């Protein structure tokens, strides 16, 4: 005999953790949050930089600089620097998006002081040695080849080229293309580094901080980072005038067809933001969301297709992505677009409640580790949002009514969708054409 199905008791009150905030003399903003039991300290540095400032001939220079920050710094050569980090159990990673350079450090608490000194050196005085510059640039060209051969990466690259205006940086790969990478040298990287400034930057430190005087440790390290200039501002991407089209990138022999369907969308600072993550979740955020209920659980065409909001420092996009077996490509695209159309017909109150309940009730669990908490505050800093934005957004979600989702949906894909397929053109082109989905632009690459 089975026990009767239990009732769920409502979650208790939960308040989003708030960090302590200090501004150092050099303009660096320090956010600290003590999380008992979290023995690996997460440090996230966000430096405002704009990729739109890159010389078009040298696109990717900021990303290459990020990759070179830990290739020797502060008097240590590349191998010595790597060993110094690793002997302290530290790992350092850096990356770039429009609006920000992020440098992440994770380190056991007892090595925090030494690791912060290395982080400060990487930010303030990277060595950029010629041999490592050559290697990192060459590896990017090789990475570009890898991305060209991987269907999801290739689709993502074609989607930005389709969705955003060719006049704007957002339409091209963050880390550059072979022709721009090959034009970069050490002087270009030096010039980009001159835009890496403490003023306007944020350092988040979270974890078990008991017994650690973090402001003093940071003051002795990143507090001594001196560089002057005016911090960069993120630039909003501009949609392409012909964004609503279908592009088929030929990938001969593909046994699956990769989709990327997108449109410009609001970012997290938008007044209506709260409705958008709920909308994306209900359309394609889980195996029982509308798209997978049809394409996976009913038809068996896919392992999973996801819809997601992709907020940027300013603005953002809504993207549906995933793959189906090639034999059903045309039908799957018709069904997918049908689900996006159906979303315009609105969502009933129970479906809305399911989405809101998932996102709001899952929220406390997302604040349980030092790295997750630091990532969240770093993202808020990058996007220039108040530190209580997640809690406010949860409250706004709980107040949503079905009409709010309809209004949000009315802002997505209004002029049509940018539709990219990476697939075996020989097999899928004719069925796609015959399906009447619209003109198809074929790209051989």
């Amino acid at each position, binding site marked *: *005999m*089975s*026990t009767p*199905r*239990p009732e*769920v008791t*409502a*979650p*208790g009150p939960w308040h989003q953790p708030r960090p302590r905030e200090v501004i150092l003399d050099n303009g660096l903003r320090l956010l600290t949050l003590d*999380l008992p*039991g979290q023995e*690996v300290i997460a440090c996230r540095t966000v430096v405002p930089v704009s990729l739109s400032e890159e010389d078009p001939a040298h696109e990717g220079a900021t990303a290459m600089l990020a990759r070179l920050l830990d290739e020797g710094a502060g008097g240590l050569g590349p*191998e010595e620097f*790597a*060993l110094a*980090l*690793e*002997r302290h*159990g*530290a790992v350092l990673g850096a990356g770039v998006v429009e609006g920000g350079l992020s440098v992440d450090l*994770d*380190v*056991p608490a007892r*090595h925090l002081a030494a690791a912060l000194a290395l982080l400060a050196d990487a930010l303030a005085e990277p060595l950029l040695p010629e*041999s*490592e510059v050559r*290697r990192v640039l*060459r590896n990017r060209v*090789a990475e570009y080849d890898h991305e*060209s*051969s*991987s*269907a999801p990466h290739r689709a993502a690259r074609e989607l930005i080229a389709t969705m955003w205006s060719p006049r704007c940086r957002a339409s091209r790969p963050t880390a550059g293309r072979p022709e721009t990478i090959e034009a970069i040298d050490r002087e270009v990287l030096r010039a980009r580094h001159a835009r890496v400034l403490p003023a306007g930057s944020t350092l988040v430190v979270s974890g078990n901080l008991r017994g650690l005087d973090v402001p003093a440790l940071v003051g002795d390290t990143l507090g001594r980072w001196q560089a002057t200039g005016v911090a960069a501002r993120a630039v909003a991407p501009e949609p392409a005038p012909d964004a609503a089209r279908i592009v088929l990138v030929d990938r001969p*022999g*593909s*046994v*699956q067809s990769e989709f990327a369907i997108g449109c410009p969308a609001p970012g997290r600072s938008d007044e209506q933001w709260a409705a958008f993550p709920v909308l994306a979740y209900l359309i394609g955020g*889980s*195996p*029982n969301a509308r798209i997978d209920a049809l394409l996976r*659980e*009913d038809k*068996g*065409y896919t*392992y999973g297709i996801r819809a997601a909001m992709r907020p940027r420092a300013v603005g953002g996009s809504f993207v549906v992505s995933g793959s*189906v*077996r090639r034999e059903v490509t045309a039908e799957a695209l018709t069904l997918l677009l049908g689900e996006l159309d159906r979303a315009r017909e609105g969502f009933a109150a129970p479906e809305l409640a*399911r989405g809101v*309940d*998932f*996102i*709001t*009730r*899952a*929220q*406390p*669990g997302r604040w*349980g*580790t*030092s790295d997750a908490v630091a990532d969240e505050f770093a993202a808020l800093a990058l996007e220039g949002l108040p530190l209580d934005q997640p809690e406010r957004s949860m409250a706004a979600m709980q107040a949503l009514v079905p009409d709010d989702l309809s209004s949000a949906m009315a802002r997505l894909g209004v002029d049509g969708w940018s539709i990219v397929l990476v697939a075996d053109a020989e097999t899928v082109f004719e069925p796609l054409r015959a399906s009447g989905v619209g003109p198809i632009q074929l790209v051989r690459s």
Partner: protein
Amino acid sequence: MPLDYPLHERTLPNGLRVIVSPDPLVPTVTVNIWVGVGSRHEVAGRTGFAHLFEHLMFQGSQNVASGEHFEALLAVGARLNATTWFDRSNYFETVPTGALDLALWLEADRHGRLLDAVNQANLDNQRDVVKEEKRQRYDNPPYGQMLPDLYAVLFPEGHPYHHATIGSMDDLDAATLEDVHAFFRRWYGPNNMVLTLCGDLTAEEGFAAAEKFFGPLPASATPVPRPPAVPARLEAPRRFERVGAVPHDRLTIGFRLPVDQTPQFHAAALALDVLGGLASSRLVRRLVRGSQEALSVRATAWGLVDGASIGFLTLDVAPGVDPHGVEAVVVEELLRLAAEGPTPDELDAARAQTERAFLTALAAQDERADLISHYALLHDDPGLVNRHLDDVLAVTADQIRDAAAEHLHPDQRVVVAHLREGEDQ
């Protein structure tokens, strides 16, 4: 010094091993179940079945409709999934504390009363979904066959680790409803599983909830124990080449390692880190930064229990460079480590990185629960969650040297080369 995560353990009369680890940081509980069946238990002609079966666990049970497991848990804010691996299958969700009973009720229903709901339609549907998973992960991406190739060359036909968990298309096609019934009866039941509850609850609350929902289930599993499948030592290198549409040549150099949670395995894993697992590793210094003949080097060691573990180095060869030359350097470095062992700096770095990686894994409630279930099911010792790190940190330079000599000797290597079409080899 051992870590001190609290562990409370009790075994129910039906054989279910329950472990509760209280942690009040956030108001959630992770429910983590490990079942003692993985792809190593599959029989010839039915590869991929353990994983296909795992998918069917989401398609309804006696009191739960198809898809309802996901729907009911997501609606309360759960994060959930399941995975299948060589040695086991796991099922897990992290829920707000008020939904713990619901999660356990849903788990007990599918782990005890699945077969009433299984039918041809949901078997056929999930077979299609799994085939798409195989195409997405293995058949469509460049280098997607690397790991299946490695397993097939590293272990002889019939060995439990000879085939990948995803299985083959032919075997997936061959699976029948009768197979589903037989598999469930053999492997599923409280006497072949571990339940870990980790989060904001007390030990007594956890035991009472486990007893309430799982207590009524009979000890229904009928696993047939067999001795570990210890493979013979490889005496000469083996090689497998696949030429195709890949962007660059990639070499995967694999080894049979000792079983998990032995000093020999820990030493071999650290040896692989010294060779290629760190930014300061020997092959990184020599081939990536130095000669720049490789774009990247990575090292992997998977601890397994059925007679052997798997370790491998992955090298992406730079365009225009002869992969044989790269392999020759790897051979030199394998021999040098076997002769000299690591330097004190290398040992420090490998230990410190192991420590951070393990502490990071334990930092997340869901990963900690998974490790506790892992150590309980496969090593009969959940306390390893507190001692494993000390065991690894106790490994000496001499042990690493000996492990390299014994288990990473070039004569025992298996090389899988995925080569770019149209280039001279």
